């Protein structure tokens, strides 16, 4: 069901954020990106 209509999926975005060398945050903070799922629909 991967949605890559535009060439990338939501999981791809999360991974890109986590792996972003310009994002100067500790690993435990970067990992929080992977918990954004249902929460995105509540915000």
């Amino acid at each position, binding site marked *: *069901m*991967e*949605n890559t*209509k*535009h*060439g*990338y*999926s*939501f*999981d*791809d*975005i*999360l991974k*890109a*954020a986590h792996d*972003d060398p310009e*994002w100067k*945050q500790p690993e435990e*903070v*970067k990992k*929080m*990106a992977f918990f*954004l*799922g*249902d929460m*995105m*629909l*509540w*915000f």
Partner: protein
Amino acid sequence: MENKERIRQERIDNIFKAVNRDNPKTVPIFANTVQGMIAYAGITYKKALENPEIYPTAMSRIFDDMYADCYQPNETGIYPMADKAMNNSFQLKIGPDGTSVEHVARPVMYEDEYDALEADPSGFVKNVLIPRMYSFLFTEGIDKAKKRIEAIVEDTLRMYELFDAPLDERLQNEYGLAKLFLSGGECPIPAPPIDTIFDCYRGFKGTQIDLRRQFDKVNAAIAAMWESAEYMPIENTFPFVGSAPHIPAYLSPKQFEKIYWPYYKKGIDYLDENGTKFVILAEHKWLHILDFFRDVTRNSCVFIADDDDVLDVHAKIGDYHTVAGGAKLSKLRFETNEQTIDYAKKVIDTCAPGGGFIFTTDKPWNSPTDINQNLVDVYNFAHEYGRY
């Protein structure tokens, strides 16, 4: 500070005694604290969120004059920088009075998508619902999209560090208050899946229609969603665990039995096995489903009565679980001081003997108009009158 910590510990001990009906010294007084209490400091929530240095002091000022033993966790619920990074598309906003928080839900799931939800619950959210709600993330290129995600993570962390944590610290260290239950983000048990469908996917109207027109499909999707439910380890028996579900009031007993109770009961049993309690903010009316809660361990739950009269909740389940109430925000706003105190006295006289009762308001203090002299006075009265 040591003295306040001793007071806080004594209050926690007394709360356990109250919910276990084990000779509490006083009726525990629960402050139903959310952002409305900023009004006591004469400023708006919006203004306070611009200044982390004044936030904890302003948010707690009411306790200079009002007695309480415990409070509910304060998550700001507002993430200004994340919202900005997401083109101001978040549903959580501060209302026109500058303080009340509003959640204007935009349901994103269609009625004919339950099969897809059942087939892959997580994938459905990530690959269908999120692209539908935040389409710009998928059309602008991944480099821009990832920066927005980074902003969301950073702002949730920033709001916790600058606002939530310092307020907790002040309430506990300066006022000796105990946090009655964990915040939503700390909750160790999963919510029943229908809560997620109701709150985040289909909304109030859509879920209600689906439960009548395609119950079996909803039920199947719920079962699939539950397969990935996780229980977190419980390290401490206090703070308790809280729950403020929105849909139970709108389920018939038959619907509740099939799609809610099996999942809710598992969570209550898990908390009970780990020595902690479940605090339920029973939003709207729950009298028609309270009998289900006789199937879990006695004294494992605390019901905060909302639109039900706490006297009715006590009559229905007060012999088995703790009930909480005694002041109604709408009445505090319009009735005389004497009337509100008479009602509190009647509730304490009826519900408190033997323990199993906590004094509080029916609803959290969401708006500036929830904060008034009657509120302060009735809390102080309840503390003085509620001595065993």
